[in-house]
């Protein structure tokens, strides 16, 4: 769809150019056919039009052969491209208005405008490093939270695979004791990766599983513990309190843990992701985002307002269904893909 869109945009651009072209041709025909007084008037009008166009054109654009005038139509198109990334209407409007101010009356290439916006977003999302903040000594505990169906369990498997491949000893905590067969799902993954897993009885207190996992990690010298939690909506107060408790008991078994609290966001999510980031940050103290399912046609632009409002960095992106389809976040390629 994204490719289709850009093709369409190109076609439209070509269309407007064509129209302009035929207009000139028609004008030329008129000139040849009419002659006399009408011809003079037409010539005069054309001359004025030309002057008018020159006057309306910024000096910097005079020598550009192609391109489009920054007018309502172009701004509308720009707004559509911005909104489609899910960055939200307000930020999109802000950017559009600024472009309107900076480029009013100029002739530009859409790609140039998008390029400058892209650079800006890249700068904004730039971060020191994408990876995990490892504990100075002892096991690092990573707690993974998110709403139902955002891709927590799959992301955990991918993280575990990654750590395992880095030569670290990994233990998983199957803290999703609510959803049917979530424990089984994670156990299957643990088996495939070849790491250990701590499970509780079905519908056991998830905090007890988290505690046992952290304890096992500390006692048996694991490098990293990744703890799953049940999906919950940020509006479910009682479940959010449960999350707070999970966080607390982890801290009791290992000083300073959890070292990372990763919020898994579905890249197809819209503006509700902002509410998710707020809700989970308040309760669980998120330290970063895993942007899952970014391999579809969704752009995940909502992380832009989230970064703006809460300063939450994206640490990893999920790019497929395979165990190795997890990459460290890269502002460069992310912003590159936004308007593709």
């Amino acid at each position, binding site marked *: *769809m994204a490719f289709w869109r850009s093709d369409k945009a190109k076609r439209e651009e070509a269309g407007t150019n064509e129209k302009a072209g035929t207009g000139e041709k028609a004008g030329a025909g008129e000139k040849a056919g009419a002659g006399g007084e009408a011809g003079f008037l037409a010539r005069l009008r054309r001359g004025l039009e030309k002057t008018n166009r020159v006057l309306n054109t910024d000096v910097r654009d005079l020598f550009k052969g192609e391109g489009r005038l920054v007018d309502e139509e172009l701004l509308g198109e720009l707004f*559509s491209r911005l*909104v*489609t*990334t*899910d960055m*939200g*209407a*307000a930020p*999109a*409007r802000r950017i559009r208005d600024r472009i309107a101010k900076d480029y009013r009356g100029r002739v530009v290439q859409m790609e140039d405008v998008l390029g400058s916006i892209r650079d800006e977003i890249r700068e904004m999302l730039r971060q020191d490093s994408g990876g995990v903040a490892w504990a100075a000594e002892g096991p690092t505990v990573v707690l993974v939270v998110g*709403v*139902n*169906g*955002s*891709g927590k369990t799959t992301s955990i498997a991918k993280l575990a695979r990654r750590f395992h491949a880095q030569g670290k000893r990994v233990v998983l905590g199957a803290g999703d004791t609510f*959803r*049917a*067969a*979530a424990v*089984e*799902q994670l*156990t*299957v*993954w643990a088996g495939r990766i070849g790491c250990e897993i701590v499970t509780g009885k079905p519908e056991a207190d998830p905090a007890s599983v988290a505690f046992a996992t952290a304890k096992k990690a500390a006692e048996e010298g694991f490098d990293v513990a990744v703890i799953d939690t049940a999906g919950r*909506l*940020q*509006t*479910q*107060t*009682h479940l959010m309190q449960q999350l707070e408790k999970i966080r607390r008991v982890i801290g009791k078994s290992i000083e300073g843990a959890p070292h990372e609290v990763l919020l898994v966001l*579905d890249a*197809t*999510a*819209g*503006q*509700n*992701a902002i*509410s998710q980031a707020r809700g989970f940050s308040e309760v669980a103290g998120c330290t970063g985002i895993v942007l899952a*399912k970014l*391999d*579809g*046609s*969704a*752009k995940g632009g*909502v992380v832009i307002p989230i970064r703006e409002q809460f300063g939450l960095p994206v640490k990893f992106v999920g790019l497929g*269904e395979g165990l190795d389809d997890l990459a460290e976040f890269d502002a460069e390629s992310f912003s590159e893909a936004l308007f593709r």
Partner: protein
Amino acid sequence: MFESLSEGLQSAFKSLRGKGKLTEGNMREGLQAVEQAMLEADVSYPVVQDFMQHVTEQALGRRVLLSLRPHEELVRIIYDELVKVLGPVDSSLHLKKDGVTVIMLCGLQGSGKTTTCGKLSQLLLEEKVRPLLVAADLQRPAAIDQLHVIGEKLGVPVYSDRDQKDPVKVCQAGLAKAKQEDARVVILDTAGRLAIDEELMAELGRIDRKIGPDQVYLVVDGMTGQDAVNSAGAFNKALELDGVVMTKLDGDARGGALLSVKQVTGVPIKFIGTGEHFDALEPFRPEGMASRILEMGDIVAAAREAHRIVDEAEREELEKKMAAGEMTLDDFKNLLEKVAKPGLMGKMMGLMPGMGQLKGLMQSEEAEGGIRQTIGAINSMTAAERRNPKIIDASRRQRIAQGAGVQAPVISQLVKQFEMMKPLMQGLAGQGVGDRMAMMRQLQSSGALTDPSMGGLKVKKSTGKRLSNAERAKLKKEREKELRRRRRKGG
């Protein structure tokens, strides 16, 4: 749900209402706010544009600008347009009279297909139809287990074949088993996929062709953003969809994707999922949804919810008692216990016209705590006291307060409150729907309902000191400043 859209529209309408006379200019301003609100609610941009075009054409017509109440006229236009876009309604599963009806669920990963399988089963069980679930999701590890657990919980048979790698064969075998067991309905739980994955989409198309399901439903996550048009479009292209189920609308998701999906697929929206439990699947009603979007409340849904928690015979008896003014504290307690379920109060309030603002208040822990406190207080009374609270004197009050672990004034407040409520209830029970609505509004404006703990079960506070004229003027100025600030923010 749809809260942000509602809020945005509300503030847009407020700004319109403030203007004495509507001109094309300020109408356009209001419409722009409407557009912004829809985008913030995740309605896809092309859909918003389309919608706004229809609305604008009508809104700038003579009828609106010249009407006495232009903003009401505008609300009506938007309401009608929403109903038109979201409708027509059809929440029937179209079960065949004889033979097996096959329902196929498809959707993106994590949209809630498997959970919806369970919810549909529950719905069918309520109608005395026992479905057979088929685990055709061979992608996600443990998807089969998940379906089995759900089947076990609901007492519904589940067909799966762990060795089979071809979902078409699983579906065929499942169908054969259903015929063998005389099941009337088969629900196929297919694997989730990404819309751009051609291969998986083709596989879905293959199931569609080989099995020929009677109903194909697309399950869409209510939190989906702009991408909804793309994914719904892809599914619509690969399959012949018969309906849409939107899930996860119980949180604060704005659900604007519903409009997008509807626009793209053109098939009816069948159900909306509003909770984690199996009974949290509601038939979709465009009027109700449009009303909710515009904060006009949804009386039908509120009534249905009320009927669900209070059974018919009980309700009639209670109504009779209320009408006769014979309601006792025991009846009151029963009523409270029913509504004290977590989250229910807020849900009900959200459905009542004009009570949207109260929703947050009612959902708070404090409100539910207040109800529990009241129930506790009533529990500490003797049967005689419950029948006739007038006999409660100082020593009885002290005893009850100690039993319930509250201060004595709480008890006298409760009794006072109950005595005050009785004639009100009597009035409510004896009147038609219109009068009841008027009464509710009156109640609301009197502030009796704005206290979450059922109306001022609080220890008396000081009435404060009298303000001098200067102080009063200063306060007024601050209030107005605050109002202006809010208006600016909202607009």
